[in-house]
């Protein structure tokens, strides 16, 4: 059909050294849904960041006599069985959940993308070998692995995040590899080679940006994954230490008492879900923004 030449107004003389990312940002701004998502996330993050100062109560401040009371004026979201303020708990829980979500995921991203990209670009024996390695890790007994880590290195949030990330990167690597493999046949890669670009630059500048779409989508799926994984591990006692908490953990406890004290489940549940939704919208928006074609429809 007609080549869609949109009239993009810009001052003739100085085109600021533009990068895909700067453009993406411009485009992202146009996407209402993802801006809302972004806004919400930022809000949540700020709240979690400021929690120690703005939280209505201390996070382990308990009043056993005020155990598990429904939402009220003093406690907007009610209290848990220790009489700890739910709102406060959720705010503190957010710190952990977001941390694990982002650290673990970025670990997964970092390792997965680089590894996958290298394997996909190199191809041949290197590729085969690297992928077998992934298979091995993929088939390892994850829980024993974590138990061991936790015991050998002692309980340590960062470690937990790393451990989770170290598991999640496998799938990421697979996806990226697949993408790169098909992209590397493209003529613009040949063109880049004929310009004399080093493989590293080609991967960074020409291949990865074009593989971003699926990566982002998968990332938006990974973040919930790791959050829930953390919850599960904590529930088994391999994760974070009480009285600290996380959304996942709050939920998993809320589940057990959902009939007696529904608010212990509902509020953390809502928070988590909304956050993940926001994340998802942002993710989709980002994917479109990073794809010059898509963002024009």
């Amino acid at each position, binding site marked *: *059909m*007609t080549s*869609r030449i949109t009239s*993009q107004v*810009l001052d003739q003389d100085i085109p600021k050294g533009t990068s895909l990312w700067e453009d993406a940002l411009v485009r992202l701004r146009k996407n209402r849904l993802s801006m809302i998502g972004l806004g919400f996330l930022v809000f949540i993050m700020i709240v979690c960041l400021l929690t120690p100062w703005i939280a209505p109560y201390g996070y382990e401040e308990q009043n056993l006599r005020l155990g598990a009371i429904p939402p009220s004026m003093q406690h907007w979201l009610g209290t848990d069985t220790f009489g700890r303020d739910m709102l406060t708990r959720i705010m503190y829980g957010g710190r952990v959940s977001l941390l694990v979500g982002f650290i673990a995921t970025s670990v997964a991203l970092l390792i997965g993308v680089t590894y996958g990209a290298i394997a996909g670009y190199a191809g041949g024996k290197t590729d085969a070998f690297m992928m077998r390695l992934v298979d091995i890790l993929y088939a390892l007994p994850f829980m024993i692995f974590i138990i061991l880590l936790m015991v050998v290195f002692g309980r340590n949030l960062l470690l937990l995040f790393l451990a989770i990330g170290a598991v999640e990167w496998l799938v990421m690597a697979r996806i990226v590899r697949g993408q790169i493999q098909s992209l590397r046949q493209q*003529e613009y890669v*040949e063109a880049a080679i004929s310009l*004399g670009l*080093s493989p590293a630059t080609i991967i960074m500048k020409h291949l990865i*940006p074009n593989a971003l779409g699926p990566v982002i989508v998968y990332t938006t799926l990974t973040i919930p994954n790791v959050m829930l994984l953390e919850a599960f591990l904590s529930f088994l006692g391999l994760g974070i230490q009480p009285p600290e908490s996380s959304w996942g953990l709050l939920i998993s406890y809320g589940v057990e008492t959902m009939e007696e004290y529904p608010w212990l489940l509902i509020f953390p549940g809502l928070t988590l879900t909304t956050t993940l939704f926001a994340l998802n919208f942002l993710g989709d928006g980002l994917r479109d923004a990073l794809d010059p074609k898509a963002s024009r429809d």
Partner: protein
Amino acid sequence: MSLLQVQDLSVYFHTRNGVVKAVDGISFNVEAGKTFAIIGESGSGKSVACYSMLGLIPMPPGKIESGKVMFQGQDLLKLSEKELRKVRGKGISIIFQDPMTTLNPFLKIGDQLMEPLRLHFGLSKKEAWQKSIDILEEVGIKNAAQRMNAWPFEFSGGMRQRVVIAMALVTEPEIIIADEPTTALDVTVQAQILRLLKELQVRRNIGVIFISHDLSVVADIADEIGVMQYGKFMEVGDRDTVFNNPQDDYTRRLLAAVPGTQKEATGESNAPMVSINELVVEFPGGKNQDTVVAVNSVSLDINRHEILGLVGESGSGKSTLGRAITRLVNPTSGKIYFNDEEISHYSLARMKPLRRHMQIIFQDPYASLNPRMTVYDTLAEPLLLHRICMRNELEGEVFALMDSVGLSRESVLRYPHEFSGGQRQRIAIGRAIATKPEFIVADEPVSALDVTIQAQILDLLLELVERFDLTMLFISHDLGVVRYLSDRIVVMKEGVLVETGSVSEVFETPTQDYTRALLDAIPGKSLLEGLAVPSKSPL
């Protein structure tokens, strides 16, 4: 009473950036046994016009504003979807441009052929099967019976197009819409397909609407021609009138664009810049197939300041040769000299400094540009990489490049998909000349473009060759094009050089049958001989 009467058809697209008048009040008739050719560049609305008649355009955004399309005594535009479906494929069927993508890769040829038969005539599987076989044979597919069970990818491009044609004919429609049916094919194949179409049309007395951007293609087959631009007919008339005294000057431009003349040879045969010796390139044949010899001990010199035309059909190994010279593929054996320096087995690192002196332009301007880099990034990359200029001069340099390849400066921040094919190719060329190379391999740089654009790009190349006194290996399957700008021509077939010589030698006294075959295949030869073409294209 003609088969199809189109009156004042208008189709608009209501997009976010306003209304696009894709088709703007066109009228024409199609007679039985006659061919009506619609000529125009991509975006001129020629395809939209035809698809809209059958309700095959996306609506919204598309909308049929006005008009009447009378077929079998009914106005197609007034028919319901259900009734239209009875016309589609039965009364009117379509042959699409790219045979590679128009067949469903997940269904066997047979299924796809039988589908319309069973749908429209409710034939039994057996009957449909037999009929399909017949039609396949008719379009010249050997031992059709087995081929029925073959998958699309098992056919070569030409064969596929035959299948597509068979699919269009199998329901014995009264009208066939052929939308650039040969553009994606090699010249010789193109010739065959055109011939086939003509035969079938005559035999079955079908009305054909032939859509193309290339006048020369329809020269032999069209009875009536409509030249289309911006959704309007610039000129409608019978073939000879249009060719011999074109009324509209857009038509003249189209005619002019046909690469007719040959370039006066600048035969300074001094020391070769590139010379190849016994070069062999093999590919491992994938899953348990024996290795493919793409280039088979080719020896060749490319002299300084000359444009060497390399002609051959797809699969002849011409592209591989080009890539081997630029070391994008590794030679199996033989030697490659660049400025007397043997580079056959240089490592990536050692190649890097040389890269700046040898560049390559690819066929497909869609695939050869990184969709996520703006023009600016694309052009700046080589400049920075090879330190052609300081950062602060960068913008100036980029703009200079854009000027020299004729891109408007304001598009500097746009992404490839926002450009037309021609403009993209200009970007690609800009990238190639950015490093001020001495030697450029141009691999089918124009074969994906409309003729008018082709002409422009060819002229651009010539101009650049002059300005930066470049040496060029120009690879193409189109003798016409090669002849237009080459000093010397080599013909390649199945990995071997079959003929070498100056343009005039090759064209006037070809020594090989293969070469002759190629020459005969040039479309619109009649036209080329028939009429005088301005020796320089006015673009």
